[in-house]
């Protein structure tokens, strides 16, 4: 399943499948990063480690 991670302007990370966009407000300009992952979205955990994303299952 193709997922997109959204790195929000306020530093938060959210994630969505194809066709869904997430914004945290009018001033938010999220950076979208496509990731391949087979973990169900309610089990996924994404953290920012420096400039890289760490994706783990809960």
């Amino acid at each position, binding site marked *: 399943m193709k997922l997109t991670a959204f790195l929000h302007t306020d530093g938060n990370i*959210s*994630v969505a499948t*194809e*066709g869904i966009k997430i914004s945290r407000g009018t001033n938010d300009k999220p950076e979208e990063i496509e990731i391949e992952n087979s973990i169900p*979205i309610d089990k*996924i955990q994404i953290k920012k480690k420096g400039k890289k994303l760490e994706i783990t299952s809960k």
Partner: protein
Amino acid sequence: MRRISQRDLLPIAVKSRNLANFNFGSEEGSAQVTLANTEQVIITSSISQDQKYEIFGNNYIAVYIGSIAPENELPGGSAVDESQWQVIGPFFSHSSWNSSGFARYLEYSKLYIRNISAGSQLVIFKNKWRYLSPRESSTA
């Protein structure tokens, strides 16, 4: 011209048409975001026409707090206090993205959620499009 009665035999030129040939479902989409008190999120889900083919979409959307379970559904789940959340939408609209030649449309839904006082919570969205079209389309 005489109307055909329900008791009449149908003319042989009239054939049944199976709506299943035109009725499609997208893959189930989902999204997750963590919201602390006073934080907000806007979720946009969209589906677009394939070139040359018209589309008529219908969007199913559900929101869960913490994890996907009936008691966690917003609104209505037994474990959810609706007074802690502000919800606007979902709204459904479309935008034209090719005004010349065959007019093409992107249909979308928008949902705004603000955490008023539920503490830091994982908010999960489930989403699916059902649509009528002569051809299978794609999410965009």
